[in-house]
């Protein structure tokens, strides 16, 4: 008997682009209801592909889940369209702060409202402005011209407007100043706690991710190579070496090599 119910479970999926390019080779991830889970890994590991498999955006890039299954609240979703999946309450915040740049900040938010079931657009906007007061000041500005941090807030706020159950965040900290990252992640944690929104967080900023998410998966070339509580991962020598940059080795070697090297070393001593 599991203690917590999973809102999302990915069971050993294999993903191909264009029917031949095998990118995910048996990935399994679980996100508990109301939880935050981090997915870590270097560039090109397949993190974004994992998120796109869940949200259905994979199909836009001619990708397909060719094996395994993705279940959301007990329903298999990997054959559903992106629109159907969004309607079920899974929203992916695509990497790179993709605001609708010719619309104002508030208009961006209103686009998110088109899926709203309960309450009015006004209620949704009030909620977003409650969590992101900066957006209230910038509401009538064209989204293409606000700062990077405000754009990130806009795309998260836009997702919030849909009343999501699970938000998939793809590298929200990328290219932002530390102060802003701090501000945004505090808000994300508040949203998780107060609005009970489950979060699957993809990050390259490992230190940050491990502080925010109680549980994390580490991915490398299309496979999950490790998963554990963040407490344990922070203490893990390999993670320290390769991701937290506490030693020199990680800078040149791949994670797998480091692990291999470490294991041998442990045998010897």
């Amino acid at each position, binding site marked *: 008997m599991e203690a917590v119910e999973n809102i999302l479970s990915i069971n050993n999926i294999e993903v191909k682009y264009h029917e031949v390019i095998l990118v995910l080779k048996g990935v399994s991830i679980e996100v508990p209801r109301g939880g935050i889970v981090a997915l870590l890994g270097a560039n090109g590991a397949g993190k974004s592909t994992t998120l796109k498999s869940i949200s259905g955006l994979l199909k836009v890039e001619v990708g397909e889940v060719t094996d395994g299954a993705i279940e959301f609240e007990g329903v298999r979703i990997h054959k559903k369209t992106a629109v159907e999946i969004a309607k079920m309450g899974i929203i992916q915040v695509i990497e790179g702060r993709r*605001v609708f740049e010719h619309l104002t900040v508030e208009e961006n938010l209103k686009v998110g409202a088109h899926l709203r079931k309960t309450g009015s657009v006004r209620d949704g906007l009030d909620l977003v402005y409650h969590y992101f007061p900066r957006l209230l000041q910038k509401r009538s500005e064209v989204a293409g011209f606000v700062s990077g941090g405000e754009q990130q807030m806009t795309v998260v706020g836009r997702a919030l407007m849909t009343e999501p159950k699970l938000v998939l965040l793809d590298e929200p900290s990328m290219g932002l100043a530390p102060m802003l990252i701090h501000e945004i992640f505090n808000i994300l944690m508040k949203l998780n706690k107060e609005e009970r929104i489950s979060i699957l967080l993809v990050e390259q900023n490992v230190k940050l991710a491990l502080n925010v998410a109680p549980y994390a998966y580490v991915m490398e070339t299309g496979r999950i190579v490790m998963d554990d509580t963040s407490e344990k991962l922070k203490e893990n020598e390999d993670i320290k070496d390769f991701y937290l940059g506490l030693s020199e080795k990680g800078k040149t070697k791949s994670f797998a090599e480091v692990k291999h090297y470490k294991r041998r070393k442990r045998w010897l001593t």
Partner: protein
Amino acid sequence: MELFFMTLTTGIMVGGIYALVALGWVLIFKCSGVLNLAMGELTLIGAYVTLSFYSMGVPFVLSILCTLIIGIVLGILIERIFLDKLIGEPILAVIMVTVGLSFFLKGLVGFIWGTDTRVFEPAIFSLKPFTIGFLKISIVYFWSFVLAIVLFLVFVAFFKYTRWGLSMQATADDETAALSLGVSARFVYAASWAIAFMAAGVGGALLGNINGVNISIGYLGLLVLPAVVLGGLNSVPGAIVGGLTIGILQNFAGTYLDGFFPGGVKEIFPFAFMAVFLLFKPYGLWGWIKIERM
């Protein structure tokens, strides 16, 4: 002087109708990146549909409403049948399909309604002019202009203030990001064709009121192309300024140049103007230049 102002007002009035048709053009381009060369025929069909309802005794305003509804249905049908399968194909292929579509629709119109010029009978608006000071404005031009502008504003309000309209603009900006929020591009494409058909159809009905309805309305619809390009293909304010400019230019060419270059100059002049204009402003007046930020 009087002739000058007469020409100017007539130009503005007709320009209002062009602006409406131009809006349809802009919408399809903005939402799906397709330059719809069948727009002239959509205008033509709108004129005939309104005329048919009116001839059956339906009041004019109701006939326009019926045209709007038929516009929605035809717009969605055409998008679904001819264009949906082409999503993702090279844009030139899609544009060529709209060329084919324009021939097909022209043939269809000839088949259903024949090629004789038909007029709205009894006339809806009197051709008699009313006078403001020294200006004589014909009533039919005046009301057509008012109707066109009202409809134009309704469409713009739809885009600016409803979530549907905003979702369409969002898709125009970033299709994948819109999809990530559950906005279906296929829905948006169909909706843009429906609205374009409504705008063009009513524009056609208004033009038909002025000149009578025959195949040449299709060419008037095409005459809007310079207006659209002038304003910048994806700019709504551009549609209105472009429409008015072309209306004015066309009428001035008709009044002042027809004596020197008899025949056709009225129709050709806007195109010539567009060509020269684009040399200097290749994005049109307000076309998108991608927002670049540091």
